[in-house]
């Protein structure tokens, strides 16, 4: 198992390096001139050359790549100042360090992801399990029906509806906003509760359906029947035998969902006018701000790889066949 984790971690770093290289060469080696983009409309040749030098674009490509990659590990110096490791460069557009911009936005994204995941896992899996346990009863029908309806909603529809009801027409709550947890825990909770709940609602519906069908599948397994034939109670078999097996598909989807949300929940952020990683990625793309776009992309890739490893470790924890092979 330790060997497995080490191997996967090494593999993840190699993959990150390759992704970095790919993004670098795609963007930097592409046949368009970033300096002139940064220079703007009234650009003099002298100014252009200055910008080239400042951005290091006058250096050979290999050197530029080396500077970029080593900057991530050791930091690097720009004419505008020192960029400490992990240095992802300086935004063309704002002149800020990309890393610190990402770090400014990340707490919001993390709150959205973690908060959403906690809610949709607890409620979604719980409801799915209860529906499976009481299969065919009214409880099951209500849970199945509700999740069908909710999972066909979209955030950009449900979000404004909730905002209209809770904020604009009644004034019960304020517009969602992000307050750092360390500064004001209560404000953090209240400020983020609407976006987290709306995001979680839609995911909850999907997880309810998935948990239910996964559980029903498990209940039909031979080994579950054996456990019942041994005289173990229905509840015991449900919680000890069937539940564990039903987690595997849920963990798979959870890994995909969480890693994509950490890379930025664009629609949610836009719907609630929040400034998270997703918004940053959009800004970077709109402004042709290459260092920012590359930075956000690498950051997202990092989480995809990290969560992939965590997912595999979870599989091994659930299923000894994976652990011992």
């Amino acid at each position, binding site marked *: 198992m330790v060997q497995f984790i080490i191997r996967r971690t090494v593999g993840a770093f190699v993959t990150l390096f390759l992704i970095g290289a790919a993004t670098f060469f795609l963007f930097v080696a592409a046949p368009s001139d970033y300096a002139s983009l940064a220079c703007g409309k009234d650009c003099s040749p002298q100014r252009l050359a200055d910008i080239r030098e400042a951005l290091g674009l006058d250096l050979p490509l290999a050197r530029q790549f080396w500077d970029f990659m080593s900057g991530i590990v050791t930091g690097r110096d720009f004419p505008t100042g020192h960029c400490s490791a992990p240095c992802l460069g300086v935004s063309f557009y704002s002149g800020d360090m990309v890393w610190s911009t990402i770090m400014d936005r990340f707490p919001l994204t993390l709150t959205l992801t973690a908060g959403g995941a906690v809610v949709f896992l607890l409620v979604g899996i719980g409801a799915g399990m209860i529906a499976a346990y009481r*299969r*065919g009863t009214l409880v099951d029908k209500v849970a199945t029906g509700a999740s069908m309806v909710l999972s066909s909603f979209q955030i950009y529809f449900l979000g404004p509806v909730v905002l209209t009801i809770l904020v604009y027409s009644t004034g019960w709550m304020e517009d969602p906003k992000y307050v750092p947890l360390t500064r004001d825990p209560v404000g953090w909770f209240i400020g983020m509760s609407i976006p987290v709940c709306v995001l979680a609602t839609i995911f909850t519906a999907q997880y309810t359906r998935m948990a239910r069908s996964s559980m029903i599948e498990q209940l039909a*397994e*031979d*080994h*579950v*029947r*054996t*456990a*019942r*034939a*041994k*005289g*173990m*109670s*229905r509840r015991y078999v449900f919680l000890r*035998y069937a539940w*564990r*097996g039903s987690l595997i598909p849920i963990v798979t989807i959870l890994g995909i969902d969480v890693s994509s949300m950490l890379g930025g929940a664009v629609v949610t952020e836009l719907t609630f006018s929040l400034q998270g990683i997703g918004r940053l990625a959009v800004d970077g793309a709109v402004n042709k701000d290459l260092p920012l776009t590359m930075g956000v992309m690498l950051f997202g890739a990092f989480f995809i790889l990290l969560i992939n490893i965590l997912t595999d470790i979870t599989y091994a924890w*659930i*299923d*000894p*066949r994976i652990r*011992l092979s």
Partner: protein
Amino acid sequence: MTTVTKAEGAPAPTGPGGFLSVRDLQVTFSTEDGPVRAVDGLSFDVDRGRTLGIVGESGSGKSVTNLTVLGLHDPLFTTVDGEIVLDGKELITATEKELEKLRGNRVAMIFQDPLTALSPFYTIGRQIAEPYMKHTGASKKAAWERAVEMLGKVGIPHPAERARDYPHQFSGGMRQRAMIAMALVCDPDLLIADEPTTALDVTVQAQILDLLKDLQREFGTAIVFITHDLGVIADMADDIMVMYAGRAVERGTVDEVLRAPRHPYTWGLLNSMPRLDSDLATPLSPIPGTPPSLLTPPSGCRFHPRCAFRDRVGGGRCVTESPAPAPGHRFSACHLGAAQQRTIFADEIRPRLG
């Protein structure tokens, strides 16, 4: 420990009083295409220390019957009628709690594929200890020791270490031994074995069958042994019930059913199966056609569309009239008269068997 000697060939006691007694069992599944009568009017008895072999092809209802005995069918889609009496206790009307106390304790089951029938998530030892703790109230430690003892009994080398292994670390034969250990851990009175050796290799099958027989002698367990393999049934059973399309077509002792069979379906099975000593010059005579769909079972005798002898029954009764299940131990659900059956077997069937 009781030692039960097998009375070879002696007829089983008839009438009520079998340890397990099933009367007029009807099992119906509701499916998308309509109701399916998987078991239709089945009656049989199993006595202590004896083995009843149930033979049938897929869809004959042999496995369904035995899941129903333990109440393991899916209640959402299944209706059960009739009577299942275990040692004087009616099981169809029993509550879930009462059934839980019987399962794994007085009645245990062994399934076909030991790889899927054991949970991949828990150690072998834990899976064996679990029912022992539940039914005897033993401590975790005592139950574990019992599990190790049972593993040793069924021939797992180094049982104390192997108990800590997971099922996938066992070979196929070892898994089925573990399954047997699990079934016998509470010393049940009745063991239901559903195709327990079908997934195993032939040399391993021979070991497992002998193990079951030896353990039965030691524990005095009654066994219901379900299989599609006549050879296995000949080896294992005292009594045989042949099932076809949800009904019993023939019943009797091993000797009676295999050496003097009376039902055309039993003849068909014997004729279509090559043996190690059969005459190679005689081609196999298969039963024509295929087993019927239970959604639309044939009228009258369910075997009549495939039966080569239906013209010997007057008045087309095979098509219109279902042969009534006769009382008594020896029984053949066929409109042919007993004498006629004996003559046909002696003159037409037996010579072809070589």
